[in-house]
């Protein structure tokens, strides 16, 4: 039924093919020796990423075993109270921030190119940068426990415990270290979203994309809205710790509950950000072993998108015992029950697929089945915990510990292990051992249930969470001992999996191609894989091209599809349209570089020096980082191609340069700014939260910032925005002098506007340490000014680009992206002014 172009009817002559593969190999050659670490390919970086997340899993797991040893007997003194508290804080934080989220992003950036038949995702260097940030932040955090300096406030970091009652740098390490890692997570989310929407192979319409892509698309979009509230919250808490602005201190008019809102606004969606990409692996594995297409494709899309939304309506169910009005509990109870519907739908899609198919027994299916058994129980206890009266009992007890491990280990770890056994041949061409896989499964499955099933009862009998010990004779003793034994059996199972992955496989022969007889695109990979990904980029007509498109492998291998060559010796891939994957652009991709590492190191310096309150080195690091990033952008982005168009094969000519909404970079800016805007809105939420809970917010009479300066600021900043938008047009019309003067004027207006914004609270002498009202005004103003400052740098950058001839009327990516940035900045400035100057009038 396809109406798209087909592959070449005859293969190119053999010597042509050989020359093509040589050129492709040259263009995609991996750096060797110590330069290996300058690689930026998503497949290579993805592998480092996965390896590091498993390392952190191991680290968090060892901490868990230490805790289980401590809890094996009542009144045990194996770990001190303080060390235990560090251990559970680091365990939770590591598993969430350094394992569960990153492994989803790692697997996604590693396999997305293959699943999409793309040579590469659009921003390989961004992924490499994200990886280095993650590595640096992760080591910094984990290392702190060896110096007895680790955070000890729980992974949820509730103030005022973490703001006023814990000296030492533990809390700062958590706040700054994780903010740094969250930047990496957002970078990966940008890469994944644009990858999923824009780098699909030609013809892979939105109704044909692999289910994995649907899931990671939703999960990555959720990151954009879930992480910024935590970044905003971390900013407030760190500012309170460092400069005593009393956001969470009731003595200064603050309220500890604001942190809980911001934290759980992140924390609950986060569970689903972990869960969705893991079920996504199941959605790839189940059809392969059922040997038929998935049943209920549309239903799974419903589940993924539905969960993506509903999971943002659950955050307060972590706060049912904080004394909120009953009607609020009711609303969040309702959403918590509703989210179970889409969650259940996908499980039935898998069952239906198995029922309708010819199921093949295999190790990945064994893990998938274990996942189902564990996760369904976790889901059911989740539904129970959402019932408020039951929650009042179960909350903060071992019942919840059991529940969350059933959800996360059943819903994430087991699918990931299934994925390891399934996808491993794609990594080095060799399968993992079936025998070890089965032994490991039964150990892990048994051990898990022995460890965590009794915890339901321990909790219902009244054992609170996060206790370093308990007294004998309260009915906890035997249950805890059983849990400890189970934890070690589980650990033994996981140790075998790790061994299976790292054991030397020199003697083992390569797996045959597509060893599981799967239908999806990633299995076109040769064993072992080539650095170029796909020999030629195929035209897709089906959800399962390897099953349903005749001679598919032959056509790909013989270069009968698109981009079978690298004539100019450059790395290239195809960008396509969002809905129907029409080819739109031939995208040139950057090669190996160390600059991403330098950018991450200096950016890390900003956060790490900040942890120790070394403000000057911290600021210098930030400036160095800024300089490096500008150099990176200047030398490697928005390059003007040597020709306008390129023949990509099959008679298709594609432009080499697009700007504005047609380009990947514009969308990356848009998506990033959505995340920035969400963080800003979280701060605005803080303002109105204080207004709701405090009678004296804003105080009467209002001490500042007045109306004059904020209004002046708004006018100047709107002027700066208008100048930037006009400059974009003047550039397009090639009015060089108008462009230069306009943009220069724009940057002057922006600087003046930023200064006027700061002048408001300054001249009215608002002291941010005195009360939460001035502190909130100052934080909004500071945030906006910072955004303006970046905007000014961007404006000057555009002027320099045009002067240097790197931007022209036609090749205008830079100014178009900067104009987009300024749309968001103008909006931010207007909201800030409306809130700080306008709202006190209304209130």
């Amino acid at each position, binding site marked *: 039924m396809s109406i798209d172009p087909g592959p070449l009817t005859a293969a190119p002559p053999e010597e042509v093919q050989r020359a093509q593969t040589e050129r492709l190999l040259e263009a995609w050659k991996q750096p060797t020796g110590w330069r290996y670490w300058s690689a930026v390919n998503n497949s290579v970086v993805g592998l480092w990423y996965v390896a590091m997340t498993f390392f952190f899993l191991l680290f968090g797991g060892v901490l868990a075993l230490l805790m289980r040893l401590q809890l094996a007997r009542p009144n045990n003194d194996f770990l001190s109270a303080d060390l235990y508290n560090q251990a559970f804080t680091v365990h939770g934080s590591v598993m969430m921030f350094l394992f569960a989220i990153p492994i989803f992003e790692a697997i996604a950036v590693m396999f997305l190119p293959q699943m999409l038949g793309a040579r590469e995702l659009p921003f390989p260097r961004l992924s490499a940068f994200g990886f280095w940030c993650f590595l640096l932040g992760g080591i910094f955090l984990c290392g702190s426990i060896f110096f007895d300096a680790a955070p000890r406030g*729980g992974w949820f970091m509730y103030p005022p*415990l973490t703001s006023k009652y814990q000296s030492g740098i533990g809390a700062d390490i958590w706040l700054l270290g994780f903010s740094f890692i969250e930047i990496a997570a957002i970078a990966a989310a940008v890469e994944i979203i644009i990858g999923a929407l824009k780098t699909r192979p030609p013809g892979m319409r939105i109704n044909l994309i692999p289910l994995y892509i649907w899931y990671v698309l939703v999960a990555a979009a959720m990151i954009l809205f879930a992480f910024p509230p935590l970044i905003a919250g971390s900013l407030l808490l760190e500012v309170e710790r460092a400069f005593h602005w009393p956001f969470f201190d*009731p003595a200064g008019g603050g*309220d500890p509950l604001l942190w809980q809102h911001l934290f759980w606004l992140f924390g609950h969606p986060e569970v689903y950000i972990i869960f969705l990409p893991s079920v996504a692996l199941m959605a790839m594995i189940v059809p392969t072993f059922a040997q038929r297409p998935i049943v209920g494709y549309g239903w799974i899309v419903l589940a993924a998108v539905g969960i993506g939304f509903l999971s943002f309506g659950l955050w307060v169910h972590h706060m049912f*015992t904080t004394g909120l009005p009953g009607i609020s509990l009711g609303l969040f*109870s309702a959403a918590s029950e509703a989210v179970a519907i889409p969650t259940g739908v996908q499980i*039935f899609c898998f069952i*239906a697929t198995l029922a309708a198919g010819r199921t093949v027994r295999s190790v990945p299916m064994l893990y998938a089945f274990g996942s189902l058994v564990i996760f369904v129980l976790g889901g059911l206890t989740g539904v129970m915990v959402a019932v408020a009266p039951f929650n009042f009992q179960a909350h903060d007890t071992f019942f919840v510990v059991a529940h969350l491990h059933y959800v996360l280990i059943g819903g994430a770890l087991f699918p990931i292990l299934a994925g390891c056994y399934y996808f491993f041949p794609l990594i080095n061409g060799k399968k993992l051992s079936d025998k070890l896989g089965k032994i490991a499964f039964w150990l892990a499955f048994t051990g898990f249930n022995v460890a965590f099933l009794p915890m339901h009862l321990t909790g219902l009998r009244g054992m609170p969470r*996060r206790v*370093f010990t308990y007294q004998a004779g309260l009915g906890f003793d035997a249950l805890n001992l059983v849990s400890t034994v189970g934890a070690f059996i589980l650990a033994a199972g996981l140790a075998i999996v790790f061994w299976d992955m790292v054991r030397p496989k020199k003697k083992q022969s390569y797996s045959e191609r597509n060893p599981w007889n799967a239908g999806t695109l990633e299995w076109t990979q040769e064993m072992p894989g080539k650095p170029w990904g796909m020999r030629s980029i195929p035209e897709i007509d089906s959800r399962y091209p390897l099953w349903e498109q005749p001679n598919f492998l032959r056509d790909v291998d013989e270069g009968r599809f698109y981009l079978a060559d690298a004539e100019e010796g450059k790395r290239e891939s195809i960008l396509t349209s969002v809905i129907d994957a029409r080819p739109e652009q031939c995208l040139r991709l950057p090669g190996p570089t160390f600059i991403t590492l330098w950018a991450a190191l200096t950016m890390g310096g900003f956060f790490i020096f900040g942890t120790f309150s070394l403000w000057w080195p911290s600021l210098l690091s930030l400036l160095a980082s800024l300089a490096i990033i500008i150099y990176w952008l200047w030398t490697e982005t928005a390059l003007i191609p040597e020709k306008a168009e390129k023949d990509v094969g099959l008679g298709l000519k594609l432009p080499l340069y697009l700007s504005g909404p047609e380009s990947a970079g514009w969308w990356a800016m848009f998506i990033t700014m959505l995340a920035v805007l969400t963080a800003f809105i979280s701060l605005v939420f803080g303002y109105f939260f204080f207004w709701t809970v405090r009678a004296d917010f804003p105080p009467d009479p209002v001490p500042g910032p007045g109306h004059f300066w904020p209004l002046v600021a708004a006018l100047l900043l709107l002027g700066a925005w208008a100048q930037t938008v006009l400059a974009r047009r003047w550039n397009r019309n090639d009015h060089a002098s108008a462009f230069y003067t306009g943009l220069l004027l724009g940057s002057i207006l922006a600087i003046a506007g930023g200064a006027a914004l700061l002048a408001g609270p300054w001249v009215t002498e608002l002291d941010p340490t005195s009360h939460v009202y001035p502190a909130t005004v100052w934080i909004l103003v500071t945030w906006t000014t910072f955004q303006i400052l970046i905007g000014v740098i961007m404006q000057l950058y555009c002027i320099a680009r045009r002067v240097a001839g790197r931007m022209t009327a036609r090749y205008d990516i830079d100014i178009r992206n900067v104009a987009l940035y300024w749309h968001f900045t103008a909006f931010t400035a207007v909201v800030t002014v409306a809130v700080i100057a306008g709202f006190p009038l209304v209130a």
Partner: protein
Amino acid sequence: MTGGAIVIWIAVIALAIHAFRARPGSHSGRHANYLILGGGAIVPTIVLTALLIYGLAPIPALLAPAPEGSLKIAVSGEQWWWRVRYETSDADAVVLANEIHLPVGEPVEFRLESPDVIHSFWIPALGGKVDMIPGRVNRLSLTPTKIGVFRGACAEYCGTSHALMSFYVRVEEKAAFDRWLMRQRATALPPSTPLAKRGQASFLANGCGACHAIRGTPADGVVGPDLTHVGSRLSIGAGILPNKPKAFVHWIARTDQAKPGVLMPAFGMLPKADIEALAVYLEGLR
């Protein structure tokens, strides 16, 4: 609810095993679609709707305040003990610590607060937990129905010794409760034995009164727990040690070992005899 969850769990697993073993062709694609629509969408929606209604219905009653004139007890969670204030109508409040007595069958309203970090007040046998949040006052109303001694604990992680922040609740007949409250309101009994007298002297001489109050003596500190009738309690150290002279000795001499991170300094440098006298004195404050 638990039973229902277990039934659903077993049903889903059985279905999955059946699907796994089913012969190809025994279920058509159409059947499979009905399975998703019925089993994945319609049945769960019905079950969840019922569960939601079942879960919402009792909330208003659980959150409603105790009737006018009920016993009011203010409890303040502090790192890592409980300040308990009986706010009786006929006289001044009585400030106690780490133990609560309740009359059986009578509604009581707890006013829960905290001066330092977030704690959570929880007596598993009597009701749900409610957080104690600095800057806020939360309420918890309940009516104990059974006579007995129950254990309560802090359920929100509140720092180093969060695990060592418990208390006991004794639910008793109204008459017994009234007698108890009257005794608690009274000032401390003067020490009767020479050892206890030495203990009191040591208590006052070593500055214990700067933090602790013993009503009827010059000791009137408010930082730490009120000790006026500490000897009458079921435990010491917020539910962690038995109320025995030996436990007092351990507590006074090695406070930081008994409760890591505790604000009270250890008094192990005092002569052993002084510590033992203190223990006898305090244990005798019934």
